[in-house]
């Protein structure tokens, strides 16, 4: 299909008879194929999954993490989600994006530094993508070079405490990298 089949659900082939059966079946097969490739099916889940779990960073500033990921075909943007607690910022970068994206985190408990606890942590996601960001520092999904085959991209995220000296810190427990596809108004290349 030229357009991603939003909302498609896998199904067995419909029984059809007559002259148009071949083309109707072809349309069904084409929709299923595009759905798998586009990411509402398994294709998209290729890149879903935590990259970082375990003991969180505590009381450190500007700590960088990088990972190279195989991004599925037709990915246009990548969301990143962070399971975290505390106060600070997370700067996200992609090797295919000129500008970074910055996520402000404010999940505080009691006290100036907040109460860090994985049980009370919340999942925070980058906001929706922006057509032409033009500057660093926006809260947005990162851009991916748009192409019809999978490709490798390196993602970097930098965790910065609000004020390490004052004990106002940010802890990140888990990271999810989630590809996004164009909406149905955009033809696939």
């Amino acid at each position, binding site marked *: 299909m*030229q357009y991603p089949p939003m909302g498609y659900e896998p199904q067995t082939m419909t029984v059809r008879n007559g002259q148009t059966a071949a083309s109707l079946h072809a349309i069904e097969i*084409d929709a299923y194929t595009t759905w798998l490739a586009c990411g509402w099916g398994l294709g998209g889940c290729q890149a879903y999954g935590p990259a970082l779990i375990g003991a969180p960073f505590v009381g450190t500033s500007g700590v960088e993490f990088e990972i190279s990921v195989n991004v599925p075909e037709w990915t246009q943007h990548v969301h990143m989600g962070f399971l975290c607690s505390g106060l600070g910022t997370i700067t996200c970068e992609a090797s295919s994006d000129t500008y970074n994206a910055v996520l402000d985190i404010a999940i505080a408990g009691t006290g100036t530094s907040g109460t860090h606890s994985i049980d009370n942590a919340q999942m925070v996601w980058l906001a929706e993508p922006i057509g032409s960001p033009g500057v660093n520092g926006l809260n947005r999904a990162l851009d991916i070079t748009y192409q019809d085959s999978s490709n490798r991209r390196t993602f970097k995220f930098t965790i910065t405490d609000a004020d390490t000296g004052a004990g106002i810190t940010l802890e990140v427990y888990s990271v999810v990298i989630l590809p996004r596809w164009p909406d149905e108004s955009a033809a696939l290349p």
Partner: protein
Amino acid sequence: MSRPAPSTITPMPVDRIATNRAIQIGQASAPAEEVLMENIQYLHCNMRPPIVRTIFRPDTTTPYLVAGTTSHVIHAGWARAPFADFTQWDISVLVQNTSSVHSAEVRWTIQSSGVTAVTPVPKDTAAWTEKATTITFDPTETIDTITMEIKNGASGALRVHSVEIRPTAIGTVAAGKSTGGYVALDTDEIGADEPLTTYIRQRMADNLEALRKTRVQTIVGWSEGFTRATTSQFSEISSSYVTQAIIPFQSGYGQTSIRWALHGRRLGSIGTVKLEVYQGDTMQDSEEISLQTTWASGDSPPYSAALHDYTGGAAVACIANKPGHIKVSLKGDGSAAALMFSLCCWFADGS
């Protein structure tokens, strides 16, 4: 005869397969029927979810593992099910070598076969440089462990920051029905610019079903701390369960069961891991794993006695098409810790 293994996918213009006409409208390069088939074949070759995605953090300030010696030492290991129709893993690792004189290396081993592959890390490799390696695995294994050993050169230090492991794309499509249920199609069968036969149409649909059900994604592929016999990233002394990790996931269509494998041990009389699957506020299922204790008595690499997996316990249930998270908890005996060194979770084949 030609069973193509395309490297790209071609969006099908609507006018080539529009309703009320047979799909025999040809184009310069290939008839529409052939493009339809090639796109499915592309998925067969390239739909390859990663099984491992780990960024190392041995302590709260160091985002990398270091090779402490000039000998190979196991630092990480991941146990999980291979994919039926692939035979090799692509391993991508981000590394740094501080030596200006000597190269270092990362070595990968498949436990079931003993097959090894080495990723050389040349001198003066800056942080973080991607290095790639391919290793052959046995697709018939139920669970298999990949271990990662790292060693320094004669000078300097090798640092390993992160790893991704995924199947290597299929380059040659074999005839007949694959183990995963995929039947390769041939351009001779469908390239005649004629309407597809009912059999071929059904075969295409069945192939798509086979791909959806068998190329299931990984929820988590994490490991760290194999060299630390008495400490770990995840360590708990308390005799009550304490949350160690929360792992978000999104189940897909027909995915109702989560399989798992982990490496762990206990230092005292009791050491247990609990996996709980939550979707919304509801806990759907849970599994408790009593950890073994033989490490202290001499278990050696690749620490197979420390491996626990769903075949010795049970897979945990989830609801299809719904976001959720896996909560991982540990408990010791109140004076000695329970430790976990790796955790891989993936969806069982779909329905």
